[in-house]
């Protein structure tokens, strides 16, 4: 289970999420329970993100929802020195990580702790941030 915390920024960034659909419902329902659930291809075993009707690796349609550990290593990272989003302004200068999940694809999420430069290859784990609307987003620490 992933730790669930409240979004530490300002206001509600829910309007910045993709629209909720029948396709992505299991992903967001998983986050609400503190689980990282992604689709895994039944033909080649590839776990994918973003949520999609077909496997990006072998193009097989469908797949089953699978729970991932949420651990991974830093693939790349950026740090915002200019603010673009008022909801994230109190968190400036914040870091966004691209994380290679141990058992899945690369995903991006804000680094949910202050600190120095992340190390490429450094170990991180996914956490869930609860937004005021009751929707959720993924971050890392």
């Amino acid at each position: 289970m992933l730790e669930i915390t409240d979004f530490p920024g300002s206001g509600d960034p829910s309007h910045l999420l993709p629209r909720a659909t029948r396709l992505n419902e299991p992903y967001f329902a998983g986050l609400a329970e503190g689980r990282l659930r992604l689709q895994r291809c039944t033909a080649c075993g590839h776990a994918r993100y973003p949520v999609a009707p077909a496997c990006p690796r072998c193009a097989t349609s469908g797949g089953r929802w699978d729970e991932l550990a949420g651990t991974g290593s830093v693939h790349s990272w950026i740090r915002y020195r200019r603010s673009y989003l008022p909801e994230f302004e109190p968190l400036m200068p914040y870091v966004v990580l691209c994380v290679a999940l141990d058992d899945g694809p690369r995903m991006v999420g804000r680094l949910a702790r202050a600190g120095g430069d992340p190390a490429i290859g450094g170990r991180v784990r996914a956490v869930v941030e609860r937004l005021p609307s009751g929707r959720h987003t993924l971050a890392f620490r």
Partner: protein
Amino acid sequence: MTGVAIAGIGTAGFGRFEGEALASLADVALSRALEDAGLQRARIDGLVSHIGSPRGIDYDELALLLGLRVRYAAQTWEHGRFGATVITTAAMALAHDLCDYAVCIAAYANSLFARIGTAGGVGFREGMREGGGPHAEAPHAGMAAPIAGAAMSTRRYLERYGIDRDRLGAVAVAQRRAAERNPLAVMREPMTQTDYEASRFIVEPLRLLDCSVPVDTAAAVILTRDDRARDLPRPPVHLLAFQGIHAGPGEFIFGRPGLGINQADDDDWRPLGADEPVFRRAGVGPADVDTLHCYDGFTSQVLWTLERFGFCGPGEAADWVQGGRIELDGELPVNTSGGHLSEGHANGWGHTLEIVRQLRGEAGPRQIDGVRVAQWATTLGDSIIYGRERV
């Protein structure tokens, strides 16, 4: 050979034109292109519009407001990446006799909108697409603005190949030096590597001077078939070959195949070089290209384009561009108008006008000696190779 050539070009210039109607800017660009081509407006029977409403102007409005009566019209999604696609769409329409004189028009104003990457900015809502933004925006994670995807890819690239980030400065400095000799460029103040290294970070690892300069503009490019182009006053600039934008899980606008960015594969990809289809069809290779013009929203895109099209190997471009190699008197002059970084971000149209000037020998203080072959190329794999003579 595609059998199609550019017969005329025109632009309203680059800058902030808040009070001007988009149609007025487009009319200036079109009038200049028609004068350049020696054609009357009534001869235009094909229209391809690049950037539509609200930032730009749609094909139907263009035709209505500019008095164009066309039998072929098309338009692309609003992104700059479709500049070459607009030209090749016109070329294909000409090749199939759907029209005889096609004009490509890009007219748009960035100054009417909030800063790119902020709410109300151009394309902001696309960040919330179901599959993520067109530049890998994930605004719910705080990852807003096109620069974010570019910065993420640049970090990955620098780390993977052990490159000092300030090596990117050679691209910014080279293009500024060219822009100093371009009266149309919005950024003509001399810039040194020291200036570059002193510029502030916007999204680390990218500095302000890694970023292009948003502008308002209009550009018009008139194309026709080679047999008709021969009868017009200006020397035809032939489209020798072209290829389209590549897309799929292995492609991302920032980076090049094999870099492992976004969801693309992380592998030991090698460029095809002279075997790239656009080169094979044109009958030339990278070594035959006299000047390269490439999409440069950010400095690192120039490096990735050089690698993608085989001008150098993977991870080598940051070294390859040092020492003036891509400057006006260098081995491969790149973006000789100053490009998006210094002339202004005109979605590839400033580059296209410059290619035509270079191949006609009309680039003035920027003219490269003996230019025969010029290439447009992007990180997404699309390219047009232009020639002064048919080969």
